[in-house]
């Protein structure tokens, strides 16, 4: 939770004047200001460029359909709310702006002139919530197909697929294919220049190099990429809408599937927000178990990344080695959580169960086994001459650009900024561990590789500290909202039995409020912005995923390079499409 910053309040008040409609206290203590639509652009410009220690990163931008919400005490009337999250590296703090909008034709001015990264966020918000952004260069649907009717995250849009009875008859298939026809003029692209005709190459959505269902349309001059237009939404699983019908507790398995390579790290991100709302203190043992499992999954994620990346640049055997080592990580994960990819093992207040008898030996074997393997990988993959030739200087970006576009995680660190949210905003007791933040220099594909290899060593170091210093005590908090509630207590009195019954059958009721919980996931900053209106389900669940801005940066990284370089960039950035489209 952030500390209260009075100077900031004054500065915003002075700048906004009467346009400041309200300041809203939130559970996460992120300063939250309600600003009128007319003044929001000016204010965002002010906090980005003029305020001291400015908020340089557009962390997230989304909308809320407020029409069915209760417990809005102290907030201005609003049917739809545009929500801006900013982040300042100088202050190490978040900032939130909200703009109240009417039901009829809600619109706000675009901020794509301030942050180029706002482009996709605004298109996504238009697509899913139906808030218009005036002045946006090309406001078309980003996630849903172009001919989709309605805005899915509005409360009156159907949630279930069975309600809609979706199917794909031949006629429809042809129409949808027709719609995907790329029109260069629509994107402001020329078909030719200086007597050269450009080639428009459609890469994906089913292409082995794109790591999933992603489509990129390339404007090529021979082999050189002039521009690229990523087309996403092929992997949209409506994770945000699902949350509105699951209980706080039964949404947990869905989080596993957001970044499906990182397992419990997703649970951690979601819970870091829910536990703030519920006000649960996590026992020490549970914290350390969580850290240990998160780092194990970080290593497992990086193994997939390393294997597929090396395969992308032409090394055919490493993937077999890294996947075997991933199996070793999964062997431990399975012994502890019972599952491989989607463990769903953390719970509100702790973990699902205590560590099993014999867990230390599994980890010790792993800690002893892995370092020589990592050295070998470094020697054979990263220091390979061909690998260097394919990745050095490819997909370069600077720290300023990276921040401007919302890049986080190892990709940002590869540019040379040692910013890790495990250290900057310690959660789950990360401040008690000794580990280094590996950084790169050039922000190219090669540095992104070296940073991640070193990060695996550091993760192993953290796991080692967990194994050596595992505290005793309960693995779940004694708290009425911890789920599922401890069973033995129910056998003593009727009150706890009733509470247990209600929590298990209906789900826990979380007090009204808003909180953003953000953590350092394996790919970057993963945040859950949850709104409770005091019921058994979240009113709104906004997931800020790291891969989304990374994907948006793609054209920037690949301009002027060749198609084969693009594949090397894809591999190095480490995204999964579920994390992009949610």
């Amino acid at each position, binding site marked *: 939770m952030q500390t209260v910053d009075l100077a900031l309040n004054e500065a915003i008040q002075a700048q906004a004047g009467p346009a400041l409609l309200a300041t809203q206290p939130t559970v996460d203590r992120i300063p939250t200001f309600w600003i009128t639509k007319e003044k929001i652009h000016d204010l965002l410009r002010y906090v980005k460029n003029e305020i001291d220690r400015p908020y340089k990163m557009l962390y997230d931008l989304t909308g809320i359909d407020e029409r069915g919400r209760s417990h809005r005490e102290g907030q201005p009337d609003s049917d739809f709310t545009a929500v801006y999250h900013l982040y300042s590296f100088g202050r190490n703090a978040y900032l939130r702006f909200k703009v109240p909008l009417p039901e009829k034709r809600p619109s706000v001015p675009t901020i794509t002139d301030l942050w180029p990264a706002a482009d996709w966020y605004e298109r996504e918000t238009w697509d899913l919530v139906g808030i218009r952004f005036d002045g946006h260069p090309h406001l078309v649907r980003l*996630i*849903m*197909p172009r001919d989709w009717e309605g805005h*899915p995250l509005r409360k009156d*849009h*159907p*949630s*279930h*697929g*069975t*309600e*809609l009875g*979706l*199917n*794909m*008859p031949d006629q*429809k*298939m042809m129409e*949808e*294919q027709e719609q*995907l026809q790329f029109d260069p003029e629509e994107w402001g692209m020329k078909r030719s220049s200086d007597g050269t005709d450009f080639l428009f190459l459609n890469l994906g*959505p*089913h292409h*082995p190099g794109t790591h*999933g*269902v992603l489509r990129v349309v390339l404007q090529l001059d021979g082999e050189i990429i002039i521009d690229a237009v990523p087309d996403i939404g*092929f*992997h*949209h*699983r*409506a994770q945000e*809408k*699902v949350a509105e019908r699951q209980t706080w507790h039964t949404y947990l*398995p*869905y989080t596993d*599937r957001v970044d*499906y390579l990182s397992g419990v790290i997703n649970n951690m991100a979601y819970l870091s927000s829910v536990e703030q709302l519920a006000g649960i203190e996590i026992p020490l043992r549970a914290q350390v178990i969580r850290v240990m499992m998160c780092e194990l999954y970080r290593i497992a994620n990086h193994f*997939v990344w390393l294997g597929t990346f090396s395969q992308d640049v032409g090394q055919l055997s490493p*993937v*077999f080695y890294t*996947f*075997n080592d*991933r*199996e070793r990580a999964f062997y431990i994960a399975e*012994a*502890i959580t*019972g599952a*491989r*990819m*989607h463990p769903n093992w953390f719970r509100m207040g702790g973990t699902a*169960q*205590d560590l*099993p*008898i*014999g*867990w230390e*030996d*599994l980890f010790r074997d792993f800690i002893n086994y892995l370092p020589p393997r990592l050295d070998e990988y470094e020697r054979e993959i990263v220091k390979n001459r061909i690998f260097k030739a394919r990745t050095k200087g490819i997909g370069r970006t600077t720290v300023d650009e990276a921040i401007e576009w919302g890049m986080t995680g190892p990709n940002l660190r590869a540019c040379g900024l040692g910013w890790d949210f495990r250290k900057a905003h310690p959660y789950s007791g990360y401040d008690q561990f000794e580990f280094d933040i590996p950084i790169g220099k050039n922000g190219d594909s090669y540095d992104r590789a070296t940073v991640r290899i070193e990060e695996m060593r550091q993760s192993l170091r953290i796991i080692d500290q967990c194994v050596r210093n595992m505290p005793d005590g309960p693995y779940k908090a004694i708290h009425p909202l911890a789920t599922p509630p401890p069973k033995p207590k129910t056998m003593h009195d009727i009150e706890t039995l009733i509470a247990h019954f209600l929590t298990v059958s209906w789900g826990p009721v979380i007090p009204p409020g808003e909180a953003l919980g953000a953590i350092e996931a394996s790919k970057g900053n993963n945040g859950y912005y949850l709104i409770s209106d005091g019921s058994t389900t979240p009113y709104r669940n906004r997931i800020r995923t790291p891969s989304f801005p990374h994907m948006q940066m793609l054209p920037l990284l690949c301009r002027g390079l060749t198609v084969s370089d693009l594949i090397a960039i894809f591999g190095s950035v480490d995204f999964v*499409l*579920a994390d992009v489209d949610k």
Partner: protein
Amino acid sequence: MAWWSRKPDSREKELSHNHTSINDSVRGNFALARLEDLVAWGRKNSIWPFNFGLSCCYVEMATSLTSKYDIARFGAEVIRGTPREADVIVISGTVFYKASPMIKLLYQQMMAPRWVIAMGSCACSDGMFDVYSVIQGVDKFLPVDVYVTGCPPRPDSLMEGLLLLQEKVGNERRPLSWVIGPQGVEQPVFPAQRELKGPKRRRIGRLTPPDYASHDLYREGHDANR
């Protein structure tokens, strides 16, 4: 198809001692079959998958190709980059509405005979994602041969699915030319695995409780306590 291969324990010994009759050598070196069965046998043991993945399940499918699981043992490691060379498409993941036109088109581009494995809960029935952007199971628009359940299924499950598909392919009757009588492909009907395995599974009484990191540890503790 009749297939006389040498059994390692019985016939091999006789052969090595030069006691072979002409009859035995003929049996050891020739296979007699109807062409149709021979083709079916060949098809069955070289089912080449299409390099196609949708979401989480694809990672487990890729894992089945790597050394610990090694799907090459069953002749299905030759991943094809084009649908025209592939025999089976494994729908490994969620069938997104926006991606489904491409899924269908890719299937249509595959050459017959072609088969479909629905891998994972999403492809089978859509599992936990009963949401507006997802088609509820790939069998809404593709004919599915084998359903592999799980979220995601372990690589072992996918390989079991492949073996079931092999059994099906091996027993299919696909006339190689014009035939008299009913035309077309005759597909064998198999009972659901649930019916075959259910009774045995229900009888399992002793499972390793989650308190133990391995079954061996549990047994040790169990024996020591007694």
